[in-house]
């Protein structure tokens, strides 16, 4: 049995947080499995062009975006270019198709990724990405004022294509009814940098940990993890954003408490001492992260765990219980 899951967005808005997430699929027998490609995915591109981006430009930018994920040493993920297709993104035809589509009614959606998943195993069957031709695009190497950088947005969407969800590592401010990114530390942050920026082309520690966790190479065995639980007033906290900060290199990798017991796990960390910072997603677009935003605990302050957590090489820290301070 198969089902279609639609996910996405890289909107001109934002939120706050830090964390990579993996897409989970509930199987027909009630199990929760991680959505990923069982083998190297083959992707096709449409031959469409938009102002400032030819079909060849589009194909090259997409290839560069995929190459960034392939270059992660601790991950085995690879992609194969299949050619140009007449199919459209969103067609459930077993072919992963990437291309421009004009959706002026989606005035906050730059691009969107959808999936066809085997819901007995979580195996990805198809993943399509459309880029909204209603926005101005650019493939200029240094970016172009007034236009969104196709390669940056493609890097984000190809992260989804690979099975990654949104990260919450970023800061935003409200602007014109939407949100503008002031800073972010993950390509998978749900809101894009503003026009002209090419900062979204570079994978960050959070992105690297996420794709490595999903498709681990032998190098990944040298990393470690932190797991534990967050409580608020003695009760489990769901949806708390937990960030592991590496004292040696300043890298941040995040996760969320994703069970009713308030459990979290953050993998792909460099061995060594880390700080844990727990924050509520109090100014985030909760729908970008959770199916059921009403469950998310927002009633606490940013809390630093009082102990330094040492990440072992190839192992887990052991259960860490963080009691956050209620608001």
């Amino acid at each position: 049995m198969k089902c279609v899951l639609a996910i996405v967005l890289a909107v001109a808005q934002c939120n706050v947080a830090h964390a990579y997430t993996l897409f989970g699929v509930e199987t027909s027998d009630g199990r929760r499995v991680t959505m990923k490609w069982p083998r190297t995915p083959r992707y096709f591109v449409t031959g469409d062009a938009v102002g400032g981006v030819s079909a060849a430009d589009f194909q090259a930018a997409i290839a560069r975006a995929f190459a960034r994920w392939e270059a992660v040493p601790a991950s085995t993920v690879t992609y194969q270019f299949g050619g140009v297709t007449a199919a459209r993104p969103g067609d459930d035809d077993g072919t992963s198709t990437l291309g421009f589509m004009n959706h002026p009614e989606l005035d906050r959606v730059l691009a969107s990724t959808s999936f066809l998943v085997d819901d007995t195993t979580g195996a990805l069957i198809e993943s399509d990405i459309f880029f909204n031709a209603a926005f101005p695009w650019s493939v200029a190497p240094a970016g172009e004022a007034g236009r969104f950088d196709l390669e940056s947005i493609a890097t984000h969407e190809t992260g989804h294509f690979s099975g990654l969800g949104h990260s919450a590592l970023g800061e935003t401010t409200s602007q014109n009814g939407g949100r503008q990114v002031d800073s972010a530390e993950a390509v998978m942050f749900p809101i894009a940098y503003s026009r002209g920026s090419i900062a979204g082309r570079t994978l960050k520690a959070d992105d690297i940990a996420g794709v490595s966790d999903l498709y681990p190479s032998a190098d990944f065995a040298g990393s470690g993890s932190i797991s534990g639980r967050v409580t608020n007033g003695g009760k489990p906290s769901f949806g708390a954003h937990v960030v592991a900060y590496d004292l040696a290199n300043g890298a941040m990798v995040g996760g969320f408490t994703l069970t009713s017991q308030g459990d979290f796990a953050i993998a792909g960390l460099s061995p060594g001492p880390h700080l844990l910072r727990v924050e509520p997603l109090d100014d985030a677009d909760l729908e970008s992260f959770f199916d059921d935003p009403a469950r998310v605990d927002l009633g606490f302050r940013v809390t630093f765990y009082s102990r330094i957590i040492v990440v072992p090489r190839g192992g887990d820290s052991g259960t860490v219980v963080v009691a956050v301070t209620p608001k």
Partner: protein
Amino acid sequence: MTTRLSLIAALTVLLAPVPARAQAPAAESGRFEVGVAPIWIGGASLGDRAANETTRDGGAVPLFTTTTTLDATIGVEFRFGVRVTRHIDVEAAGSYARPPLVATVRSDFEAGPGPFTAEERVRQFSMGGTVLWRLRALRRNPRWTPFVIGGVRYVRQLHETETLLEDGEWYEAGGGVKYLIRSNGRGLMKSIGVRGDVRAIVRTASLDVDGRAHVSPAFAASFYVRF
């Protein structure tokens, strides 16, 4: 330091089975020396970091900043020395201490200026060799012998959860004074005395967050026996 050394010397004299005054204030006799000492190792900054996020133009803005320190601690030090010449002893030395590793967070974008702290205890072992050079020319009293020392040690730091080791070197240099309580030149224990020294310890590699060498002061006061 003088006061502390005097107190230690006085205590040792009281406990010594033979009054020091009854012994000839001759030079230290005995080729081998064994000593044990409490050692105070001063704190060292291990570096500052910022939890940076990337701005739209590729710049960096800190979400918060951290300062990491290995705080001062008192441990124990063991030494075994061999007299090589009238002036020089070669010593094997080891120590054990449990310094606190402390991270201080400041200027969190959302939580405020702080500071917020997190810490753990590190088990720190060192093992290595030192050279002690007696400055006999500076002696004003035959019981007191000033000296300088220098050496290198292997240092191993084990985090609190005992799941991760950090290895590195520790270089030390300093000076001090030995006070001879008793020396009879006969029997098994040929000399008994106390010793105090001040050192600068330079740690490289091992536990750090900035990849630099870090300097700590250290002070040790020991009781020693020569055979």
